């Protein structure tokens, strides 16, 4: 018997024809659209007011000559041109690149090494994690001001005294054009390594223990295990933390501002500090046009850099 007769005979129900519900505002509201909007509203308002609107204002101000106290005038791309021709801009860019490079060479491997060592420890691992994270908990401004005192260049400064016990120094720290930037990187690494250590520790727990056993069977020592097992397994996390670090160090402001105000003789002048100087350096009213122009240039550069980076490392990541 065919299906239709089955239905006719046994009265089985046909599947109900699908109604196309007409989408009206009322149906949208009833279907949960309104409550979704209500829940999203605070986020939209806060982000709109404090993130998106300022970005739009930044783009607008970069095309104006404005000091926020008199009426602004439109000047097209003059601000960008002025920034590019400012003799301090290449200095700021060079110093920022130098800071980022130092932070990458010295500050990037340290949290990884610390995490690997800590993961080898069986007991008291929690204590080590807490100790590693402690510098991150100290407010950055407090940490910098403390270190500024420690970095006193005379032989009675804290660091110089300690180094004096092992017959080293005294070193000029922040008082020398050569030493100032490395001093900043040292403090920055101390202050920020803890967060990355925690991330790596978590990532390390995801490495399969059998891999290490297999490596031991093959006769690998500790260094071989790290190089051949740990690092490849952590590839994804390492690539992400690297790009985050580069973006973060390209925007360094706190350390140069509080330690040296960009000195001595512009040795620690960074792009963000230059932006701050444009905006607030002149007591008669800042040049917000140039400040926003340089901000946009920095943001554009970092965006392009990130895209290039993600493309280039796509084959290396775990995706």
């Amino acid at each position, binding site marked *: 018997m065919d299906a239709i007769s089955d239905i006719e005979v046994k009265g089985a129900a046909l599947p109900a024809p699908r109604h196309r519900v007409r989408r009206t505002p009322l149906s949208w509201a009833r279907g949960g659209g309104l409550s979704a909007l209500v829940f999203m509203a605070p986020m939209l308002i806060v982000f709109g007011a404090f993130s998106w609107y300022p970005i739009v204002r930044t783009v607008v101000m970069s095309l104006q000559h404005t000091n926020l106290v008199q009426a602004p005038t439109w000047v097209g791309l003059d601000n960008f041109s002025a920034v590019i021709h400012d003799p301090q801009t290449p200095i700021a860019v060079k110093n920022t690149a130098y800071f980022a490079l130092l932070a990458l060479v010295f500050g990037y491997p340290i949290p990884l090494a610390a995490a690997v060592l800590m993961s080898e420890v069986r007991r008291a691992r929690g204590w080590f994690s807490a100790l590693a994270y402690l510098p991150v908990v100290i407010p950055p401004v407090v940490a910098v001001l403390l270190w500024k005192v420690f970095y006193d260049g005379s032989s009675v400064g804290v660091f110089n005294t300690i180094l004096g016990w092992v017959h080293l120094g005294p070193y000029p720290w922040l008082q020398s*054009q050569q030493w100032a930037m490395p001093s900043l990187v040292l403090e920055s690494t101390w202050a920020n390594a803890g967060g990355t250590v925690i991330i790596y520790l978590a990532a390390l727990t995801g490495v399969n223990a059998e891999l290490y056993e297999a490596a031991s069977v093959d006769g690998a020592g500790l260094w071989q295990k790290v190089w051949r097992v740990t690092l490849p397994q952590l590839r994804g996390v390492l690539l992400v933390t690297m790009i985050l670090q580069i973006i973060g160090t390209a925007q360094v402001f706190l350390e140069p501002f509080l330690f040296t*105000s960009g000195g001595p003789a512009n040795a620690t002048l960074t792009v963000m500090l230059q932006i701050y100087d444009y905006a607030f350096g002149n*007591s008669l009213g800042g*040049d917000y046009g140039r400040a926003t122009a340089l901000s946009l240039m920095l943001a554009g550069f970092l965006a392009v850099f990130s895209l290039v980076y993600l493309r280039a490392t796509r084959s290396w990541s775990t995706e």
Partner: protein
Amino acid sequence: MKSIRLATAVVAAGLLAVCATAAAVGSTKKAVTISVASLIPGSTPAAIQQFNEQVAEFERAHPSIKVKPVEYQWTGPTFAAKLAAGTLPTVFEVPFTDARTLGDNGQLADLTAGAKALPYVSKYNKAVLAEGTDSKGRIVALPKGAYAQALHYNRKLFAQAGLNPNKPPRTWAQVEADALAITQKTGKPGYVEMAKDDNTAGWILTTLVYTLGGRMEQGIGTRAKATVDNKQTISALNLLHHMRWVDNSMGANFDYGWSDINQAFAAGNIGMYISGSDVYTNLVQASKIDPSIYGLAALPLAKNKKAGVLGGGTLVAVKPTVSAAEKAAALKWIDFFYEEPLISKAQAVRNAKTLVANKQPVGVPALPLFNKKQYDLANSWIKPYINVPIAQMKPFLTDIFAQPLIPEPEASTQSVYHALDAVVEAVLTNRNADIQGMLKQANSVAQQAISSGS
């Protein structure tokens, strides 16, 4: 019963009506609130107490005005930010260098009418009042205090180094020699100079250059010519270089700003430094200096006709966006707090008594805002209350009035100072700094700032 209740009700209503009318009459005079710059952040509780007592005295004399003290310190960056945000107090202070341009840009209220009504406005030193007058002739700020740069020295370190504390150096060669002696005998830096990137480095370098007879600018306004790379600037930088690298008498830290150098001096870690003649107030209020170590001398001048002492000062101004009532109240406060103690004996004495009661300094050497006669008169009124070691400041008071007073560079002052900051820092931190090259570059930066009016 009913009639008693009715009567009570009528009486009560009548009383209420009377009270209401009285209250209404009493409150037709609305209270005006103004916020005023008080002390710099970090001042001692005693200093804050003293200020509040003066506020209370003012409010007693003017019941319809309420005064709100706001901590305030003029620094380039914070002033610019507050100006842009509109969060300056109603009454605030600006240095001589900025008032005119701020007035021209409409950032300060026009006080001409109110100022002209003050009985002593014609007695002001013309040069001092001109600092607060914009290019259209409007009075936009009234003088608060004028200072001359001076040499502050630590008498105790002088004694320890075998030098006579009552005979401070009178030539730059003597400054060098004394600094070397202090470093060798006490281990403390003998001479320290401000070298922070916040315009103070350029300010003190300009001071040094003035004492050698040089000038940083020629002409006025946006047509002025920057001359920061003149002969005297090179001499001044060479002097610093010699003291830093050959004598090693400048210590090991070179990033002192206005506040930190005061702190380090008060802590007894500096032999000599240059700053305004009126910083003793800050040394007491923020750093609790031991008065016995303080000595004040005039700056050594070279034997050059154009050598002189950099003079500056502070003006007090009013926010432009205030109502007429607030402006009138602000002028009353300015008159009471800033000007009266210099003009009226009763107010000067009252002021001094309050300061003394709170252990705040009275008698710190300042420069005349009016004329020398008024200055001497005002000083005589407060003489019984002077609690600063005035005898230790004698070298300054004896010499200063014979020294030519030179105003700060007129055009784009702060920008010119800023251009020089890096040069000073380079000389102090790099033995092989290219002084000539850096000065040339600083000159072009300064010229650009002058020509663009910033």
